[in-house]
């Protein structure tokens, strides 16, 4: 497959993108129920039928599908992500507002889990078979088996409600005018529990990948030889193996970044964190068509980009993979 070359690869991704864009358009409209409640805002049931018809007409929902699709594509080409029915403002604004929070959660937890996962995975592989390795392995697999929302709920119960040391929700203290360091601290306090939860649940994946990767390079003889050498040489060997083992890990991390954008839905819900994930869920529940489409698109593009990144990085890191 890889012999198809770069051009073909790009074409395939472009095709996927196009299909995704079209699917993103069709899927929201397939859902039963209608967004009239959103369009009309308050007390939609108290509007007269004429008023409701006027609302539908104004928002273009009564146009034939093809015509709606054409406008959709045209808008996209212009970079216009549309207008939210619910909040009556450009969706780009909404996404730009929420994106940093999701990035904060996803980026921070990616960073922590990458560092912890790589370090622990490497050490575990190096000490393969020993008690510490088996213990760590077991712990990681156990951690990977815990439901994310449950962990989040527990943390809220423990740290926010019972102990009262950390805030239970939100990204910042509302409408407060903190500046400088105080503000950073406030943000950090609010982000602590979500980031900890996300990190804890991401570490096992990185750890296992790193461990496997290292082990696939190491053979028993290699290990025995390494151990028979002096401390300094051992260290050099260790670093050498780690570098070689990073290829798949990098790939996995690059992919994680893409999924992180959508994957924080549950965490953001549990912690009332104003990010993209929560926006998706709210938009879908409220059938806010334009917001749904736009967030779908952002998520899709993110995943595609990270796939591209992974495809790009992997052969450069691991020469063996070039020969399929």
């Amino acid at each position, binding site marked *: *497959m*890889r012999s198809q070359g770069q051009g073909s690869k790009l074409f*395939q991704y472009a*095709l*996927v993108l196009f299909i*995704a864009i079209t*699917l993103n358009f069709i*899927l929201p409209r*397939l*859902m*039963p129920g209608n967004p009239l409640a959103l369009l009309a805002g308050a007390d939609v049931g108290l509007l007269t039928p004429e008023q409701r018809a006027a609302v539908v007409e104004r928002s273009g929902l009564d146009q034939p599908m093809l015509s709606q699709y054409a406008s959709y594509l045209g808008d996209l080409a212009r970079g216009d992500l549309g207008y939210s029915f619910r909040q009556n403002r450009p969706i780009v604004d909404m996404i730009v507002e929420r994106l940093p929070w999701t990035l904060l959660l996803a980026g921070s937890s990616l960073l922590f889990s990458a560092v912890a996962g790589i370090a622990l995975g490497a050490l575990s592989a190096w000490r*393969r*078979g020993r008690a510490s*390795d*088996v213990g760590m*392995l077991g712990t990681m*697999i156990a951690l*990977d*088996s*815990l*439901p994310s*929302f*449950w*962990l989040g*709920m*527990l943390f*809220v*119960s423990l740290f926010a*409600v019972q102990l009262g040391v950390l805030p239970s929700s939100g990204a910042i203290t509302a409408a407060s005018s903190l500046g400088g360091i105080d503000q950073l601290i406030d943000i950090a306090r609010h982000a602590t529990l979500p980031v900890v939860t996300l990190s804890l649940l991401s570490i*096992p*994946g990185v750890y296992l*990948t790193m461990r*496997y990767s290292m*082990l*696939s390079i190491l*053979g*028993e*003889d290699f290990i025995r030889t390494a151990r028979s050498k002096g401390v300094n040489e051992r260290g050099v060997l260790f670093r050498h193996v780690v570098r070689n083992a990073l290829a*798949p890990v990098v*790939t*996995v991390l690059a*992919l994680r970044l893409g999924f992180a954008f*959508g994957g924080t*839905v*549950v965490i953001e*819900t549990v912690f009332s964190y104003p990010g993209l994930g929560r926006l*998706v*869920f709210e938009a*879908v*529940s409220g059938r806010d068509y334009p917001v749904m489409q736009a*967030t*779908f698109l952002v*998520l*899709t593009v993110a*995943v595609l980009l990270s796939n591209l990144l992974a*495809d790009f990085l*992997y052969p450069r890191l691991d020469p*063996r*993979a070039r020969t*399929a």
Partner: protein
Amino acid sequence: MTGSGIPLPEGAQVSAPIEATGTWRQRLIGVRADSTFFIGLIGLLLVSGLILTAVLAPLLAPYDPTERVGLPFMPPSAAHPLGTNDIGQDLASELIYGTRVSLTVGIVAAAVAMVIGTAVGVLAGFYPRLVGSLLMRFVDVLLIIPFLPLLIILAAYLGRSLFNTILIIGILIWAGTARVIRSQVLSLAHRDYVTAARALGASDARIISRHILPRVLLLGISQFVQATSGAILLEASLSFLGLGDPLQKSWGSILYWAQVRGAFLTDAWLWWVVPPGLMIGAAALGFALMGFALEHRINPQLQATR
């Protein structure tokens, strides 16, 4: 990986080793044999325990979980070891009967995923040019669609029932299996025995059924076990988000009611939130450990069958 389920780009093989050379001991990736076996055994014990609980539920549970047997929100007592839920049903009984629902959903959904994934993977690997290309593109698209909205659509369209939950999860997770199976079939299809069989005039169907399928079976089983772990977690998440059937007594729905009735804001978190989460974790863990052990078993075997 269990709950992660991250797909890898083509050519990236993490769970199966890249062409390793050397002695069979060098090819034995992973922990020493007995440790792997030990891990798998723990997994098996966990899973067996849970299956037993599910089967013997009527004997183990003190009450019928759908019966209102106490006042709402009662704390644990002699009569109700885990207290009661928001309408006075016994939580311990719900937990025990929940084993049935959660395990069933997990296993069946994973089975669905394995069947579809294996079928697609075999076809894609055996006919890599046109059919395989098309199938894998389809897999790619599927993996790209943001899954939460897809879940909601499906739940809304199909209605919230147990059957539909199983269907939805199965549809979501087969893609990963397809990729793994396809990788394996790609390499198998070039083996000597396949070439030989073709030279002797065997039909494709025969080659697949005699030479390919048996050899991917083990991999398929390993994938199935791992997928079960993921499916159990998915069901819990679905129910928690309110996308499952809230009237079913699964572990996920117990947590759903705990959350919407504010249990984790009160002391009730200890007996209402912690136990179901632990059960979910235990089930996912059990299957994950088994899958882990199986995989380490399979790898050297695959190497040996050259």
